[in-house]
């Protein structure tokens, strides 16, 4: 067991930091950092293109797809630095974390050729069509239907909701029902320009353009838009979410924002007893989340199967986000009233930490059953 970075890891982190220092615009922090805004999406295409050109967009991917087969630590160090900077990749973090790797694992040759290179060049935005009005945590109850037409195509009808990046996305990673039951759900890769798709932005406290309703009205896609086999969505989604749950080092941004808030209080002579204890609580929670996440990455690097500890890491991260968010609300509220766009951005991300990628309460259930070995709840 060793808690120090080796020279190669240190060099890589320095390279990423140098890149950020060179390529982030001088007014980066002044922009509203809603990850789904039109500005952020346009910027992410420029920025991710530059990352790709420098070999820093998908270093952990296989060489065939533009990577260099770098290990799991490299991918995570990259993600830490990006999140700490406020995630200039915008919604494209999702592409490199799990959409690309999921396509590599489950996609046909044609699907891989069509979709992976644009991701590796940093020029495309995806959205994730999972949640529905009646299917949130209970994803298996989703109702969006994909019915085979007489021409062998699929006709998709239904509604998705809470869909991040939908108004800017080129392609949707869509779950739709092809038959009844839990094993009747399939994945479709649907260009968002397909006729019959209507996207409506939902005004929200988490920023402009982040969440949407997406309506599918007789949206026709060819049969080869299906990813994997018919009814394989559960397996594919589980694989994708396991990458997503520990792919976002939220603690990195939270830690930086906590220090930023403390420095503000110190400058104002307001870092006093109550604030000190809450700051310590938040800082310790961030560090615990960091180490839990590192333990997962280390397992991934050693090729060890990752189980419910991913949920443990995720919940620890939610706790850290919450602690930092609450610290700012309690001790530096002016930051959320025009005082500091980055602290506002953190607040907006922190409040969804326990909701996006599976509710924190679902994680607690998984921890109880699969990590602690408690008997299951009756259904």
């Amino acid at each position, binding site marked *: *067991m*060793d*808690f*120090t*970075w*080796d020279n190669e*890891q240190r060099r890589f982190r320095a390279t990423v930091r140098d890149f950020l220092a060179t390529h982030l615009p001088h007014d980066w922090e002044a922009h509203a950092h809603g990850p789904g805004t039109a500005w952020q999406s346009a910027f992410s295409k420029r920025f991710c293109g530059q990352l790709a050109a420098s070999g820093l967009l998908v270093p952990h991917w296989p060489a065939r797809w533009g990577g260099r087969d770098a290990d799991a*630590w490299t991918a995570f160090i990259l993600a830490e630095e990006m999140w700490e900077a406020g995630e200039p990749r915008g919604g494209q973090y999702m592409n490199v974390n799990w959409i690309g790797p999921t396509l590599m694992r489950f996609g046909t040759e044609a699907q891989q050729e069509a979709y992976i290179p644009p991701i590796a060049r940093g020029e495309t935005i995806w959205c994730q069509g999972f949640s529905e009005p009646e299917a949130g945590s209970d994803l298996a109850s989703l109702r969006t239907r994909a019915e085979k037409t007489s021409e062998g195509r699929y006709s998709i009808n239904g509604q998705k909701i809470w869909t991040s990046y939908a108004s800017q996305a080129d392609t949707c990673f869509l779950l739709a029902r092809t038959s009844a039951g839990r094993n009747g759900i399939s994945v479709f890769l649907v260009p968002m320009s397909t006729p019959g798709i209507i996207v409506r932005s939902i005004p929200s406290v988490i920023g402009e353009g982040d969440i949407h309703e997406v309506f599918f009205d007789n949206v026709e896609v060819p049969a080869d838009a299906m990813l994997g086999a018919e009814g394989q969505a559960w397996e594919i989604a589980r694989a994708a979410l396991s990458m997503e749950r520990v792919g976002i080092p939220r603690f990195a941004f939270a830690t930086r924002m906590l*220090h930023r808030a*403390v*420095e503000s209080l*110190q400058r104002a*002579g307001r*870092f*006093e*007893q109550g604030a*000190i*204890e809450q*700051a*310590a*609580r938040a*800082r*310790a*929670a961030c*560090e*615990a*989340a960091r*180490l*839990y996440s*590192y*333990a997962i990455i*280390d*397992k991934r690097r*050693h090729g060890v199967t990752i189980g419910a500890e991913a949920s*443990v890491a995720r*919940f*620890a991260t939610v*706790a850290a986000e919450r602690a930092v968010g609450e610290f700012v609300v309690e001790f530096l509220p002016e930051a959320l009233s025009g005082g500091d766009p980055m602290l506002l951005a953190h607040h907006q991300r922190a409040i969804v930490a326990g909701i996006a990628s599976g509710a924190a*309460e679902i*994680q*607690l*259930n998984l*921890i*109880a*059953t699969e*990590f*602690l*070995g*408690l*008997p*299951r*709840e*009756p259904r």
Partner: protein
Amino acid sequence: MDFKLTSDQESLVSAIDKIAQGFAAKPTDFHGFSLVSEAFERELEEGGYFDVATIPEFGHLGAAMVVERLARLPFTAEVALSLLVRSNLPGEWPRPLAVVERGRPGRFVATAKTILIIDGDAIRVLEPTRTQVERVESIFAYPMGRLASDANGTLLSRGEAATVRQWLRVALAAEASGLLEATVACVVDHITQRKQFGRPLGTFQALRHRMAECAVLAGGVKWLALKAAATADPADAALAAFHAQEAATRVVYDAHQMLAAMGMTLEHSLHLWTYRLKALISEQGGRGGQAAAVAQECFGGRVLV
């Protein structure tokens, strides 16, 4: 960064687990607070385990692993200070060690051969005479003792005292980590077996979620304690101790709620871990003291307390 145990660390942990097997169960006729065993002490002493930190292959990280594993047992011994603090004292001092803060009773004080006397910013080190210490009855599940108020000792320099404080925090976190793990395991066992309303308590979501949160807290303490031992960074030590006391406060309460009246009995083992944790919660200034240390070490020291 590599979290896999080295072969040396695996051997160490395996040897400790082998010793632990002999002390893994509370004797059925023991209905007290302080469960100690001369045989337990002797096995550790004869195996040289109190000097693990000074062996380069193991260092403080190996020592923290030993402390964490032994703290899971119903038996207790003065392990944490011997393994994690003693080698950081200036000069040679005999074990067992104990700490006396503000003149209060402390763990292992009556049997300690070296006592660290903490009074404000000052730390003194003393080899007490037998007449300077006495046992006291206590609800805390350690052998507790009191030091005579006129006892003095060698005053440490500011730098030496800072080092000692840092390693006291690591020792606290490592010990709390094992105690928390044992507490969680004990509760999981109980709510898996105990049925109410026709089904195990552990099937009720209200309890499942609380235990899951406790497990997350407990595991976090373990990682922070191991890191603090490995890096020897004062900031890591402060974070580990704060999180240990924070987690212990929550987990002790939830554990007793879930065991209800059974957890109040001396027949059950729960109090052996929870009342050790309560002792640790009270040490080194409690969470307020650790928070000040975190502010000093992590946030640049501009603290207005």
